[in-house]
């Protein structure tokens, strides 16, 4: 009998209520004691789809080619804020090969971004916002046609600096004002004033972090095609079911008439969590032309309109006792969310949750400006917030003459500081210990003394990480046992490059007693009808994995039941191993497919659902990173010599692919710490570096030695697999650890990212000048 349960699920620091339907019995958790029995789980496993990815056979949305397919390109507004006075597409429409031009003149009014704008709006609120779509036989013709569209804009006053946007007479991005929801998001526990009164020491600082761009290698895009009355969309997305719901709503279609497919995608990092305007435009164009339409963004559009990590201005104040116990934290953040926001941004997550502290107040101001809208970017808010919080912790340690690591241990949270619930597991202490060992933390002063020569200064720094990553319901899966003795896992999740397909195959094979080669995983298609959540928030494996295991256990038990009757072996004497029935009485083996020789085309279908998360416990992921840097006082160059990362995310299913994720997060974190920055021209209100030539992402030559390890700590209370998420954790503490190491090397702190040569030199020079004027005392 199906059982309906209401439960609470965390996603990127916010809690949501979910209803789920459970069937069958509760699974016994795979606890630490099961480890010795595993054939596949916990073993390094090359990706099951590796061959497709290395041969060019993997079809990305960019690669979809359909008979008669047309190409669409978008005309974008050159002004940061403007109203369209006149729009004439007639010349473009007359160009040979152009099949359609969509704009505010002829497209339906479809509300977009929570109703703040429309699919084609006549008021444009950032440079790069969509004005028209040209659809033509060839891409090159689209470019010609874009130049033939005549638009007269009335430029409007604009603002790109979030602090200026909060001033009373600032130009308004929206009529309702520049502060999202008209007020900051405020969190408070204890008594802040009392907490500061109890403090023996107080540190305070203001930190600035930059906007950074996802720069997924595959730009955003969709291919839309009508099959009869059904709209089929290939979308480079992290959430096929979300795109389906959004597109169905935009076009007024029932859900069952929209099918969304995503097999391979070239990165998302949070920027592909929802449908884009390009998705709906492709669908409308396909409807109007009766032909498949592909709409892809180019690199410039990607960097103007496809999301970013908001810049922040953060003010933090920490109070602590002489013994180094935190008594109070105040944290105010101003976040530049750009022209539109679906939810408030926040940088205060780590402040609320990382350390035990009775008196905390945080305020997050999400501010609209005339820039491209923000979107989730790998651990949104936590990367920014951890940088500021961990810098302040180091300042506190210095003031108290305490080892930074020791200070963190003295404020170690044994229960979640927000909910007061204990954690299911918390491997942070183990991560600190192992990380300190790997970087040789105790020897750092000796190494600094020995290696700092001439203009070079060596420094060490560390930072901690907390994140959700529990995953949760609803997530469903089917496991089919096919008549040829193979099995198919069916679920509506996505493999966004993290290795989901491989991990799910390992789990299914393990639970079924099948070899890995006989498992096929079908995902990324809403047509199967088996829902899974978006692949974001480090929640994919911990959400879908348990559902797959449940479905596989159900299929296995049906298979044993049927097998026992066909083979005439008592049910309790029959087991499955490596795709064969084993009669435990005489050890006789028969391949699974033999029973189907008698049953012909009978197919077994097992069902599985993700159960609820524990109610009385918190499920979180933890980690610590340590950086060793060399700073050149003459050139301002920061060279990271070594990064050590140790993370705890429950059980490790695939040590090979998890290492890829750790490296990936750390390298993106290094880009954030040292080189990446979207530059805006405040006078013109435009982004001046929306290309990969001018926006610097790390190349292979920018990568230092990285030592990355997991604390492999199965978490049987979190879910029956004992897994938690790992996608976001490794990017969270990287910039913080690097910035702390740079401060250690320099002997003073730079409060702004990225730590480019320019910034380091400027700070060094200003200090030299101060010193020249005799004001250098008490540096830091």
């Amino acid at each position, binding site marked *: 009998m199906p059982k309906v349960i209401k439960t609470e699920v965390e996603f990127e620091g916010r809690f949501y209520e979910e209803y789920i339907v459970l069937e069958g019995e509760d699974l016994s958790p795979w606890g630490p004691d099961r480890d010795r029995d595993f054939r596949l789980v916990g073993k390094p496993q090359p990706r099951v789809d590796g061959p497709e990815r290395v041969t*060019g056979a993997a079809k990305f949305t960019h690669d979809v080619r359909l008979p008669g397919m047309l190409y669409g390109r978008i005309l974008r507004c050159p002004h940061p804020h403007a109203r369209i006075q006149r729009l004439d597409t007639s010349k473009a429409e007359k160009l040979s090969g152009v099949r359609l031009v969509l704009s505010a003149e002829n497209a339906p009014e479809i509300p977009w971004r929570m109703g703040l704008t429309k699919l084609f709006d006549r008021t444009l609120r950032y440079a790069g916002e969509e004005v028209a779509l040209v659809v033509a036989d060839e891409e090159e013709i689209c470019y*010609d046609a874009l130049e033939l569209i005549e638009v007269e804009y009335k430029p409007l006053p604009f603002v790109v600096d979030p602090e200026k946007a909060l001033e009373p007479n600032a130009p308004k991005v929206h009529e309702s004002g520049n502060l999202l929801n008209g007020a900051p998001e405020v969190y408070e526990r204890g008594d802040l004033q009392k907490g500061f009164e109890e403090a023996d020491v107080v540190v305070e600082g203001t930190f600035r972090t930059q906007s950074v761009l996802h720069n997924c290698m595959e730009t955003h895009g969709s291919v839309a095609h009508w099959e009869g009355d059904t709209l089929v969309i290939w979308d480079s997305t992290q959430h096929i079911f979300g795109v389906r719901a959004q597109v169905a709503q935009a076009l007024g279609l029932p859900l069952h008439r929209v099918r969304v497919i995503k097999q391979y*995608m070239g990165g998302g990092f949070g920027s592909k969590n929802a449908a884009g305007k390009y998705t709906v435009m492709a669908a409308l164009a396909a409807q109007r032309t009766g032909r498949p339409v592909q709409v892809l963004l180019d690199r410039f559009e990607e960097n103007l309109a496809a999301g970013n990590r908001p810049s922040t201005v953060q003010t933090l104040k920490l109070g602590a006792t002489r013994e180094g116990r935190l008594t109070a934290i105040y944290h105010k953040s101003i976040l530049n969310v750009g022209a539109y926001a679906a939810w408030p941004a926040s940088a205060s997550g780590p402040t609320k949750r990382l350390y035990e502290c009775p008196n905390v107040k945080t305020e997050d101001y999400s501010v609209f400006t005339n820039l491209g809208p923000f979107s989730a970017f790998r651990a949104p808010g936590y990367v920014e917030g951890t940088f500021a919080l961990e810098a302040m912790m180091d300042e506190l340690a210095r003031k108290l003459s305490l080892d930074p690591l020791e200070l963190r241990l003295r404020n170690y949270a044994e229960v979640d500081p927000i909910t007061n619930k204990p954690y299911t597991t918390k491997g942070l202490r183990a991560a600190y210990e192992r990380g300190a060992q790997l970087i040789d933390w105790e020897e750092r002063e000796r190494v600094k003394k020995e290696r700092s020569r001439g203009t070079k200064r060596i420094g060490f720094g560390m930072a901690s990480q907390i994140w959700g990553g529990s995953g949760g319901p609803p997530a469903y899966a089917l496991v089919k046992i096919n008549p040829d003795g193979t099995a198919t896992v069916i679920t509506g999740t996505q493999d966004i490059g993290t290795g989901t397909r491989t991990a799910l195959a390992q789990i299914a094979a393990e639970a079924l007693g099948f070899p890995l080669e006989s498992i096929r995983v079908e995902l990324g298609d809403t047509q199967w009808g088996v829902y899974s959540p978006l692949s974001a928030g480090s929640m994919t494996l911990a959400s879908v994995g348990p559902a797959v295991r449940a479905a596989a256990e159900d299929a296995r038990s049906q298979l044993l039941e049927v097998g026992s009757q066909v083979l005439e072996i008592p049910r309790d004497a029959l087991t499955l191993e490596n795709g064969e029935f084993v009669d435990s009485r005489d050890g006789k083996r028969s391949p699974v497919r033999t029973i189907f020789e008698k049953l012909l085309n009978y197919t077994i279908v097992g069902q599985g659902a993700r159960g609820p998360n524990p109610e009385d416990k918190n499920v979180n992921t933890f980690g610590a990173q340590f950086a060793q840097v060399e700073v050149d006082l003459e050139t301002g160059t920061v060279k990271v010599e070594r990064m050590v990362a140790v993370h705890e995310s429950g059980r490790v299913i695939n040590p090979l692919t998890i290492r890829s994720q750790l490296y990936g997060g750390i390298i993106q974190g290094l880009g954030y710490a040292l080189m990446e920055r979207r530059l805006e021209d405040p006078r013109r209100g435009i982004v001046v570096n929306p290309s990969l030539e001018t926006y610097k992402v790390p190349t292979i030559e920018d990568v230092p030695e990285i030592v990355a390890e997991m604390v492999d700590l199965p978490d049987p209370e979190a879910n029956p697999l004992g897994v938690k998420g790992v996608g976001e954790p490794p990017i969270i503490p990287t910039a913080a650890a690097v910035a702390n190491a740079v401060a250690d090397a320099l002997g003073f702190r730079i409060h702004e990212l990225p730590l480019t040569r320019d910034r380091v030199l400027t700070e060094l020079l200003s200090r030299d000048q101060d010193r020249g004027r005799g004001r250098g005392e008490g540096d830091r």
Partner: protein
Amino acid sequence: MVKVFEKRESTLGAADLAGPDPVSLSLRVNGQTFSFVAEPRRTLLDALRYDLGLTGAKKGCDEGTCGACTVLLNGKPVYSCLLLAVECQGHEIETIEGLAKGGKLHPVQEAFVEHDALQCGFCTPGQILSIKALLDENPEPTEEDIKRAVSGNLCRCGAYPHIVEAARAAAKKLPR
């Protein structure tokens, strides 16, 4: 590429802007000859992807800054988005689709799978071809040689450490 911020004043009529008419082109790709008709402004990348249906080379930027479109031209890695198809006639072009022979992966491809030298896989064909070209010329590369060879191939997922491992392993595997 779309010029977002400048609108060129056009005094030409629509028909003139379409450019010269399509011409017959012939390319040697993966040892085979392909003939097709395309406008002279068609890049090698677009010709491969649209006219030949070889979508292994990817379009990440279309202006020579990401390396996802890397193919081999007479054995040397090139950005196919920076070449016109017309100027590649008469040259030997190798794409990722030509690497595996008889259903067996090339040792560089094998090493990329074994060492998980990829995540999303979008930049992977370009990375593999750059490494292949390196190993063809220098069978015993140093770590520096390897990094130099793929320094023009961006990977946003950060597979770099595993790419170095894979290149080293492939160098050991390849016949000398």
